[in-house]
């Protein structure tokens, strides 16, 4: 996106960007880094998507047709690692990079060089991880959860897996500290905590989760490393350890991790729905408290991933009830989104369509999660396609739809050009229909007993899998409409003009809509002032004064 500096008109800019590739390598600018994060995330979505297509092609019919079972296992493992750590998390960090400084009214993130480091660690980590596909023994194939003792059988890829996770962890922790500090320390005067935009709030809480749990993951994989190479026995019963201990430590990270992947999505949806309903967000304070409650609860529910490993009954009951509690703050959120739309002056531009689809489809994923929370029935659901359907409903039409919605919503602000609405609607309907074609039948396959992570299946599951594979292929290729539409905004393809007003969307509120479209390379070198009503009172005056 070379446009960002081509015509920026910010004359305070005494250290402009370098030219060519060095600009991106050396940049300390939050907008450049946000762009890099987003390009990286969508590249990883593409690679992870290709892996999912290998899985779906193999599962199109029973029996083994395309790949060796070992390679199938590598695909399920790598698909998850790439999508979680390479796609969803960097996608949200990219959005935070772009939007948090603009939404709190400061010029950049608090630690711009650390921000650069946090980004460039990711290509290094994923080069290490993806290179394992070409090593003797292939990529890790023991599942993304890396359970011992199976994961310890990984070949040459094993240390690459561990160190890739370490590098991703450093990236996440530095990114999270940066975001926390920016939000706490660099807000515009007058923006009290309860006047912050909800995307900022959800990211603040997400960043706390990251700081708290990424080091735990680092500790867990370090213990795997020493178990394999330095004769320790953390996860070996003969030495007094316990493989289940790894699962506890891993899921102490892993459950907050799933909220790390959904809380920013809540923030995005809470931003988009009020804009296109042309009403204030219903229950702002309760949204904040609900987000904080979900974050707190995420630390005391981890063992619901492990109901079948043989825990004491008291633990099974505790984790069941704690998990079901999460439905309460989540219900508050869904109620608030619906109440925001109630009697609003609704229009249905593409970001709004994705946001509404989020509310519907994420709720389906939430309900199946509630079913999985029930210990006795989880013994039947565990490791079936029902679980696969559940977490794909919360991650794809949940997290991924929200990233897509956010890109549609803010790309006019980033590039100064409007996307093509017809293509956007086409993309939405193909995505919304075929994501359900892909994942809805997996509920039935799972309830009928189909196991996950197996390349073959009994013939009675055929119809569900045919639907699922067809849906996956159409969904995957439909995303290229989106990629084209967004790149066209970046590069001005098809004669797209930069003719947008500052506010772009009629109902949009917040500081980012008070600066020009595209946003100048450095926004808010002059601090905006937030009034008692939460609106940016003096910004307009400042800008008008500059224009004359």
């Amino acid at each position, binding site marked *: 996106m070379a446009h960002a500096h081509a015509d920026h008109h910010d004359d305070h800019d005494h250290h402009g960007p370098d030219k060519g590739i060095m600009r991106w390598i050396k940049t300390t600018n939050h907008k450049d880094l946000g762009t890099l994060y987003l390009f990286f995330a969508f590249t990883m979505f593409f690679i992870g998507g290709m892996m999912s297509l290998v899985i779906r092609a193999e599962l199109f019919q029973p029996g083994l047709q395309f790949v060796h079972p070992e390679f199938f296992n590598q695909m399920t493992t790598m698909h998850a690692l790439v999508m979680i750590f390479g796609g969803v998390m960097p996608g949200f960090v990219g959005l935070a990079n772009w939007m948090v400084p603009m939404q709190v009214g400061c010029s950049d993130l608090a630690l711009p060089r650390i921000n650069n480091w946090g980004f460039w660690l990711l290509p*290094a980590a994923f080069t290490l991880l993806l290179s394992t596909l070409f090593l003797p023994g292939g990529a890790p194939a023991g599942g993304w959860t890396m359970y011992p003792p199976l994961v310890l059988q990984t070949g040459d890829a094993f240390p690459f897996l561990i160190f890739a996770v370490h590098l991703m962890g450093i990236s996440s922790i530095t990114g999270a500290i940066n975001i926390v500090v920016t939000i706490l320390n660099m807000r515009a005067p007058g923006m009290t905590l309860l006047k912050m935009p909800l995307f900022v709030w959800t990211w603040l809480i997400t960043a706390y989760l990251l700081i708290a749990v990424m*080091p735990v993951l680092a500790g867990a994989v370090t213990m795997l490393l020493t178990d394999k190479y330095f004769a320790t*026995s953390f996860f070996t019963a003969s030495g007094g350890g316990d493989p289940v201990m790894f699962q506890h430590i891993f899921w102490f990270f892993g459950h907050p991790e799933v909220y790390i992947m959904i809380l920013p999505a809540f923030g995005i949806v809470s931003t988009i729905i009020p804009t296109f309903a042309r009403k204030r967000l219903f229950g702002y304070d309760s949204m904040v408290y609900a987000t904080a409650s979900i974050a707190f609860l995420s630390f005391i529910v981890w063992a619901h991933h492990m109901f079948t490993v043989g825990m004491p009954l008291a633990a099974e009951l505790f984790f069941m009830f704690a998990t079901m509690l999460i439905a309460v703050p989540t219900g508050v959120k869904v109620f608030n989104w619906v109440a925001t739309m109630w009697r609003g002056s609704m229009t249905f531009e593409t970001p709004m369509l994705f946001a509404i689809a989020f509310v519907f489809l994420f709720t389906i994923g939430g309900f199946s999660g509630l079913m999985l929370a029930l210990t006795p029935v989880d013994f039947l659901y565990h490791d079936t396609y029902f679980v696969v359907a559940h977490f794909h409903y919360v991650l794809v039409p949940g997290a991924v739809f929200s990233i897509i919605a956010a890109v549609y919503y803010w790309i006019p602000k980033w590039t100064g050009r409007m996307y093509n609405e017809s293509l956007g609607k086409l993309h939405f309907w193909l995505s919304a229909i075929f994501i359900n074609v892909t994942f809805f039948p997996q509920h039935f396959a799972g309830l009928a007993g189909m196991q996950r992570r197996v390349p073959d299946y009994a013939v009675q599951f055929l119809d569900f899998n045919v639907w699922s594979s067809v849906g996956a292929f159409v969904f995957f290729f439909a995303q290229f409409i989106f990629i084209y539409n967004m790149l066209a905004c970046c590069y001005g393809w098809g004669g797209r003009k930069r003719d947008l007003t500052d506010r772009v969307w009629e109902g949009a509120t917040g500081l980012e809509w008070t600066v020009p479209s595209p946003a100048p390379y450095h926004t808010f070198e002059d601090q905006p002032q937030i009034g008692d009503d939460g609106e940016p009172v003096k910004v307009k005056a400042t800008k008008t004064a500059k224009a004359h």
Partner: protein
Amino acid sequence: MATAAPNKDRYFVPAPSAWPFMMTIGLAILVLGVSNYLESKSFGTIPMLAGLALVIYIVFRWFGGVISESERGEYGKQVDMTYRWSMGWFIFSEVMFFGAFFGALFYARTLSLPWLSGAGEKIETNLQIWPGFEAVWPSNGPAALGGDFQTIPAFDVPLINTLILLTSGVTITLSHHALKEDKRLPAILWMWATVALGVLFLYFQVEEYIHAYRDLNLTMGSGIYGSTFFMLTGFHGMHVTLGTIMLIVIALRLMKGHFKPDSHFGYEGVAWYWHFVDVVWLGLFVVVYWL
């Protein structure tokens, strides 16, 4: 309009920088080397050392750059506060990192060992797989991995180490108070005293490891006791090493005339880190050596 004028004190936006990218390259080469080394490939050592050298060089350059920016007075109040928050949350992330290993120790002692000896509903585990195993601490598990071993008594060298670290917490505070009263010489001397105590602690730790391996047959392979013992004390020792290097840098900076009585966050950040290392040791002393 007070807020309209560009306020140089308000935001510090650094120029584009190649340090972070080079740091990543260094780390990538380092872990590539370590991976190959662990898998016993032929080309592990050279990339490992080269990567490490590059990382150390970049750390030196990067911190050097930050120090000169600070000494040139480019940082205002806001940057100061940014560093305070960042250091605080960085230390919190370190606490969580140690938490994983403390958690492993807790889990092994209160759950996995009793279960292996048949506690609770796990009687069949004991009868069928590990008959006759009884959970006592210290333990190297039902297969007695690594053979018989002895442990290091708490009220011996570890107690001395505890006193050394607690004393170093006092000396660094004396140094800090001297700096705040602008008495540079005592500030420098107390800081070097802190460094000396850190080095002494490390010396005793190394001696303890040699003693454990050579005389006590206590190794990383000594079942869950050896695993948790060396993982916790080892990572703590690495942090003390890092902390001591940071203290040396601060002592040298004091001697060069850096820091002002009312503005010296580089100093305070290192002091925070040192206290964190100290507190982790207290936890170690109680749950690893003593109980």
